[in-house]
Each structure stands twice: as structure tokens, then as C-alpha cells.
């Protein structure tokens, strides 16, 4: 063995010698996403991890992630993954088994105060109405030639809930996981840009100035019964949603019951942060050049945007109807908060309301539809899982 052969061997095993143009393009896209996450602060907690996962899995010869392990029609051989897989393969087990989205939902539940929704139960209708985009995007995806499973996964982007989109897609269309996750999280970050024009187009100036009555106070008993009852009722109607909704409500129960403060603290901070790192790296790593650089990715990005727009419009239209029925007691701007991006969508309602009437405080009123949107999108995902899973 001489120095020449060692150098030659080093060159052949280097990423430069093995590089494929698609991988280089993906590394470029990963750098753009890192820029958007770090400089523009687009959902940085998720996007930075996703972009970095994308970056390392596209380094030629790194062997961190093997798409072929996860697309075997005969099923995933977990023993093989553990023995031969790379680091990201091991982390990806948590995505494939649905562990990460469920734990993230537990954290979301522990951070969410359902009080505004309990105080104004009617606002739950808006959380349902804002799932319109899910089914509109599903229809459009079918028209564009996607299969039922793929269309269902694309449609759920309209639920504006990243973990829910990942939970459904890893089961129905795992090969589309990366573009769907990137679209879902990017549009969630862009809600302050996407929603206001639609809100202004659908509502009148007078409607936007409507001031709503102060919400009643919600007792601790109500807050404790709520997660238990929602789990029982919803999971009896739609058992497929048990893992997502059950974890969401468990997190909320830990928060509200008053005897598990330490657990609530761990779930909404340490555990959630750890899982967010694993989830984002794993999801980003699935964006390999062969499946990401395709026409379908552009279609998914476009359909995702339409899904968000339809969901926003659905919530607003129903809120307008409720405004008419209640003779002007409901400001229609809270309807757009029915998409489940918590609390960004509620903040947008508040900002638009304050622009129309500076003494208007809609935030707590908008939190009702906002948190019911989380339940609504989970139910929508559970239904699609029951049909196509």
C-alpha cells in the first residue's frame, strides 16, 4: 500500500467523488431553508432541524439515512434498521411508529389553555369550518392525479398542524413526507402573510370593528373534566385518532389537574424540545434528491397554499354566518383562527381586529376557534386514516 493508493482510495470514498447533481441541489435547498429559519425566523424551532436533516442526509456516502429501508412493501425490518442503519435511520423509527407526533401533541396539550373555548363553546363550530381546506385540497389533489392516500396526506396540510400532517403522511404516503412537512411548517410560518388579505376580502369594515363581550371565567372543575370527556367522546366516535388526541388531552390534563405540575413542566419543555429535535432531523432527512426534486413537490407546495387559503376562508364564512345569526355579537375575524396554528392564527385575528378598531381585543375570543382547530384537524386526520389507512 503506497501513499498514492491511499489518496486514491480517500478520493473515491469522499463525497466529492460520489456526488450526484441532485444531492448538490438538495444541499443548496437545505442552505436556503437554513437561511429562512435563522435569518427570516420562519418557524425556526422546526425549520432549522428539518433543513439540517436535509443537509446531512444528502451528503454523498454519509450513510446516515437509507430510504430503501422504509419503502419495502413487505414491511419495515426494524432489526435490520437497528443493526445496519445510520443515525437518522434510528431516529426515524420515532416518526414511522408515530411516537414523535404524539409526544409533540402531548406538549401542545400541556401548553394550551382550553378555557377560552370552554367559555364560548360555540366557537368550536369555527374550528370545524376551518377544516374546509383539508377536503378542498384533497379533491384538487385527486383531480391532479394523486392517489387517494397521497391526496389525503396533501389535504391535511390545510389543517395547519405539522405533527398531524406528519402523523398521517408517515402512514399513508411516506415518500411524500418531506415535501408535505416542509410545506406545512413553511405555511404555518407564513400565516401572518397569507391570512390578512383573505380576511379583508371576506369581511366588511363594519364587521371587523365589532367588539365582543368579555368571556366568562371557567372553573377548574370544567378544565379538568374537559380533557377526559373529549378523549372518551372523540375516541369512541373515531378510534383511529386515539394516539394523537389522547396525547393532546393527556398533556392538557397534566396541566390542569393541579397535582402533576412537575410532569406538565417536563412535557411542555424538556420532552417537547428533545422530540422536536429528533422529529425535525428525521423529517428533513427524508428529503433526498430522488423523491424531493420532482414535479409532485411543486404540486404539493401549491396545493398546500390553496389548502391554507380555503381553511381560512371556511372559518371566516362560518364566522360571518354566526355574526348574522347572533345579530353582530361575533366578530367574523375570529373565524380565520379556526386553522389550528396555535397561537399564530389567533394573533393574526387580534392584529386585524385592532387595525379596524384599536380598542378591540379579540385574542382570547380567537383562542377558542384556534384550539378547537387543533381538535378539528386531529379528527380530520383520524377520519382520513380510518378511510385510507
Amino acid at each position, binding site marked *: 500500500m503506497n501513499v498514492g493508493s491511499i489518496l486514491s482510495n480517500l478520493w473515491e470514498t469522499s463525497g466529492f467523488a460520489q456526488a450526484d447533481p441532485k444531492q448538490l441541489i438538495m444541499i443548496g435547498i437545505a442552505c436556503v431553508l437554513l437561511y429562512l429559519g435563522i435569518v427570516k425566523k420562519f418557524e425556526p424551532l422546526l425549520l432549522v432541524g428539518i433543513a439540517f436533516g436535509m443537509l446531512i442526509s444528502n451528503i454523498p456516502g454519509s450513510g446516515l439515512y437509507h*430510504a*430503501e429501508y422504509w*419503502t*419495502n*412493501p*413487505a414491511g419495515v*425490518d426494524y432489526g*435490520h434498521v437497528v443493526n445496519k442503519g445510520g443515525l437518522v435511520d434510528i431516529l426515524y423509527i420515532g416518526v414511522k411508529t408515530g411516537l414523535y407526533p404524539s409526544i409533540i401533541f402531548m406538549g401542545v396539550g400541556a401548553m394550551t389553555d382550553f378555557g377560552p*373555548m*370552554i367559555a364560548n*363553546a360555540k366557537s*368550536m*363550530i369555527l*374550528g*370545524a*369550518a376551518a*377544516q*374546509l381546506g*383539508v*377536503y*378542498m385540497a*384533497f*379533491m384538487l389533489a*385527486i*383531480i391532479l392525479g394523486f*392517489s*387517494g*392516500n*397521497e*391526496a389525503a396526506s396533501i389535504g391535511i396540510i390545510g389543517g395547519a398542524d405539522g405533527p398531524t400532517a406528519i402523523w398521517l403522511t408517515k402512514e399513508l404516503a*411516506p*415518500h411524500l413526507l418531506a415535501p408535505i412537512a416542509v410545506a406545512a411548517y413553511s405555511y404555518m410560518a407564513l400565516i401572518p402573510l397569507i391570512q390578512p388579505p383573505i380576511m379583508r376580502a371576506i369581511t366588511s369594515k363594519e364587521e371587523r370593528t365589532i367588539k365582543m*363581550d*368579555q*368571556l*366568562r*371565567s371557567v*372553573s*377548574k*372543575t*370544567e378544565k379538568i*373534566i*374537559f380533557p377526559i*370527556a*373529549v378523549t372518551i*367522546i*372523540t375516541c369512541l*366516535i*373515531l378510534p383511529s385518532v386515539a394516539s394523537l388526541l389522547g396525547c393532546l388531552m393527556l398533556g392538557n390534563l397534566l396541566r390542569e389537574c393541579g397535582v402533576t405540575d412537575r410532569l406538565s413542566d417536563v412535557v411542555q419543555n424538556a420532552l417537547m424540545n428533545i422530540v422536536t429535535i429528533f422529529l425535525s432531523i428525521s423529517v428533513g432527512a427524508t428529503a*433526498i434528491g*430522488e*423523491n424531493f426534486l420532482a414535479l409532485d413537490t411543486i404540486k404539493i407546495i401549491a396545493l398546500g397554499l390553496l389548502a391554507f387559503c380555503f381553511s381560512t376562508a371556511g372559518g371566516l364564512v362560518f364566522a360571518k354566518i354566526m355574526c348574522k345569526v347572533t345579530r353582530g355579537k361575533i366578530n367574523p375575524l375570529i373565524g380565520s383562527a379556526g386553522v389550528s396554528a396555535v397561537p399564530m392564527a389567533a394573533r393574526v385575528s387580534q392584529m386585524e381586529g385592532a387595525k379596524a378598531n384599536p380598542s378591540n381585543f379579540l385574542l382570547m375570543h380567537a383562542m377558542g376557534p384556534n384550539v*378547537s382547530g387543533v*381538535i*378539528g384537524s386531529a*379528527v*380530520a386526520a383520524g*377520519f*382520513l386514516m380510518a*378511510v385510507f389507512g
Partner: protein
Amino acid sequence: MPDISNEVLDVEELSVEESLELVTVTESSEEELGITEALGISGLGFGIVFTVLVVLMAFITVMSMALRGGKKESKPAVKSEPKAAPKAVEAPKAVEAPAVKGDADMYVSLNGVRHAVSVEEKVPRFTVTVNGKSHGVDVEEAKEDEE
């Protein structure tokens, strides 16, 4: 195209392209959805989301009413009080400066009577001096629910 007729596939032998092709082959074998079926599924799905949330809404309403002793929906205490015609509050009269002037943090007018007030925080007790007379004040947070 990889041979998928065998039951056991050695995934290590498959390249990324082949495995992705496998996914495509598997998916193309799925029954394709027509627009009418997709419309039906969409309608049903939207209906189920509405049904679940309406059932939850009904439950929450009933639960709240039961816990609140049958009252349909009460507003916060301040709002629910019967509105009495507000008494005309006299404009603060010019009160001659009390003897403690200069020692007070603020002047508080109560129904036109002006008081010199200063507050000193001595945790957990406050000392409030009104018109030169000191009072010990304990402040306790109102509990959210004592039902």
C-alpha cells in the same frame, strides 16, 4: 423495475431508485379514486369533523350549565350585576391639603373627598398611610374557583 413477485425482498439489494419505483408500483395498484368518490369522502369527512365538534360543544354547554347550577351562561361578576343608574359623582372638591402633605405618595379622591395615601411594602404586609394614620393591610389573591 425490481421483481416484487417474491414475498421476501432483500432491501439491501435495492437501490433508492428501485425502492421508490416499488412504492410507485404498489401505489398504482391502489384503487384509483374517481372525483365523485372523492367528493363523497370529502363531504363525509367534513360532516364527521362537524359532528364530533358539535357533540363536544353540546357536552361542554351541558357540563358548564350543570356545574354552574343551571345558569345558562353567566358573564363575569362585574358584568352580571344589575345596572343601577350611576350616581352622579361630585367633582373632586378642592380639599385643603391635609397635615400630612409632602409625606404622601399620592392623593386619592373618593366621592369628592381627597385623601393623602402612601404605601410601604413590607412583605407579606403592606403599610398604608391614609391622612397620616397607618394601617396594616394584608393582600390575598382571590382563588380562581371556590365552587
